[in-house]
């Protein structure tokens, strides 16, 4: 049959400037390089996920990439119904023979931006705005705190979560509100790991002339001058790899962990933020990076035991 990969974006949509957009960029890169088109769908409510994935399978799409942990159950269900189709899921582990589960060591990336934040902070207080209050986001938070304390053990970190439902991914107003309250309490660098909500956080930082750290995609371009960096979670590479492997017919099932070592996570440095990142900040991050890779620095994974020791 024709080779036809498909991707199902989650709520927030492919232009969320963050997580879904990263996937979109990876898929677009694949399209540009190979000339193969792909099917796509943007989920706008909870019940659509399964339907959309099944619809892709029924149309003969292969492989099918699900974006986000919320699609885990739907992928699991449909993958069982279509055992001859390959599936991939980002941010969730689905134990079915025809599914590749792609997870990232977000704590490692967060550790690095934590180091940068601590170094960039003049007030000695930095902060974190999370999206939905789930272990995955606490993993971001925990790594961030770890990195900050590694760089400056007196650093104070304020943390807030936007909410406890999926709506927390899509509430920039609330994100901005939280960021403002953190600035008022002394923070001068904020890290947003909150999907579209984060856009409000970055905006608030720009308004208040504080520094902000983006997430998932490189968001530095959004507010040049106040974007300290972005914690990269290379979903674009993941998506690209899934499609490429699919094209070659060699998409492997099982868990695919992308950490610092695999270049799955990292931090962004480009023309928009280079004036904000000094040489010794760069040096310190490089040191941390090397330490993590070598195993000298152990970054605690919140999801390993649901606690954060920092």
């Amino acid at each position, binding site marked *: 049959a024709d080779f036809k990969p498909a991707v199902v974006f989650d709520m927030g949509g492919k232009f969320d400037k963050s997580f879904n957009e990263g996937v979109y960029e990876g898929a677009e890169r694949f399209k540009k390089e190979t000339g193969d088109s792909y099917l796509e769908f943007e989920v*706008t*409510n*909870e019940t659509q996920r399964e339907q959309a994935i*099944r619809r892709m399978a029924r149309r003969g799409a292969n492989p099918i990439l699900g974006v986000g*942990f*919320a699609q885990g159950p739907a992928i699991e269900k449909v993958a069982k*119904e279509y055992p001859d189709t390959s599936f991939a899921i980002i941010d969730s582990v689905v134990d079915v023979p025809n599914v590749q589960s792609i997870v990232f060591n977000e704590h490692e990336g967060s550790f690095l931006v934590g180091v940068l934040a601590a170094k960039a902070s003049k007030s000695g207080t930095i902060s974190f705005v999370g999206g939905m209050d789930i*272990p995955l986001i606490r993993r971001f938070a925990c790594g961030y705190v770890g990195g900050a304390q590694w760089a400056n053990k007196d650093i104070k970190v304020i943390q807030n979560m936007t909410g*406890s*439902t999926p709506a927390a991914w899509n509430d920039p107003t609330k994100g901005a509100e939280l960021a403002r309250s953190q600035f008022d309490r002394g923070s001068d660098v904020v890290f947003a790991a909150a999907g579209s909500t984060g856009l409000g956080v970055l905006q608030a930082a720009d308004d208040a002339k504080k520094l902000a750290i983006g997430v998932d995609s490189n968001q530095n371009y959004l507010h040049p001058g106040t974007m300290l960096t972005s914690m990269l979670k290379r979903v674009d590479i993941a998506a690209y790899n899934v499609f490429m492997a699919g094209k070659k017919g060699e998409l492997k099932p099982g868990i695919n962990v992308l950490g610092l070592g695999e270049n799955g996570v990292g931090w962004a440095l480009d023309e928009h933020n280079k004036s904000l990142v000094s040489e010794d900040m760069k040096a310190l991050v490089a040191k941390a990076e090397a330490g993590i890779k070598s195993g000298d620095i152990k970054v605690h994974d919140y999801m390993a035991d649901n606690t954060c020791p920092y």
Partner: protein
Amino acid sequence: MSQPIKLPRWVDIGVIPALNILAALAVSALVILSLGEDPIEALDVMLYGAFGYDEAIGYTLYYTTNFIFTGLAVAVAFHAGLFNIGGEGQAYIGGLGVGLLILALDRWLPWYAILPLAIVAAALFGGAWAAVPGWLQAYRGSHIVITTIMFNFIASALMVHLMVNVLIKPGQMSPESREFAESAWLPLGHEMFAALGIDFSRSPLNFSFLIALLASGLVAIFIWRTRWGYAIRTVGRNETAAVYAGIDPKKTVFLTMALSGALAGMVGINEIMGVQHKLLLNFTAGYGFTGIAVSLMGRNHPFGIVLASLLFGALYQGGAELDFEFEQITRDMVVVIQGLIILFSGALAYMFNPMVARLAGRFAAARGQEG
């Protein structure tokens, strides 16, 4: 509602609703045109998406199931002169009842043993959630519309709290309960067809569709063929006459709201026991609000409601197809159409009456001259 102009019955239940829906569709077509797409083509895509293949039909009927329940809920309250905007919250809490029950029993009992209990749970939970506003309206004089709206929000907060803090399956990101044992799932449509030797694609259509049809029949009988339904209709049409007839309007309001909420709660059977197989957030997805449109369109009659539910089921399902086929149109277009139907079939229901009355009068006069 305002004083309708007297029209022949067939005009009143045939021509006027048709005109209202046509008006809604015409405006929708204008919106689609303004987006630079072809409304006829969109209609075609939607029809295909809703009825073109068996999975689509399954989805359409699955949505229909929810709309029948919420439409009936709104209609029953309407018959007592009450406007229940709280279908959303009642469905939510009804689903909670179903979920809690199954979580407790799924390891011990098969679905057919759980189902009657689940129906009771859905009815009790949903009913209670509506009965409180009903009681407040009847005995404390608060406005049912406002309280049911407030109860929607309270239901939502309650569910978030329970799902996030209490019912979430440990070690999981999404606030969802554990999945029910498979033996507790309602039979899905394709399984039932398979048992009959018919090949049908997999879809969320499940046994509760039959329950919904049964419920419509029962509600029709209840409203028009029992003394309790009679009492409800009397209170709705003329409260003074109800008092004269020895019917207690307060009690009737209270019980009718409970019944209305019970029907909305049945969404939980379809969603939780039939489709999701676990408790989760936002499974009501606006079905409660759509129930208002369904009921208005179905003229508060179960038969009309089944038809209107089918229409909305087709809109919901076919609407999803819009996403696939059109650059510019998404399934949110369905929400616009829904809003326009509420506007034209509900708020502007009598807009065409004077015009139609004039036409009908002229028509009758012309016939009179011939004869």
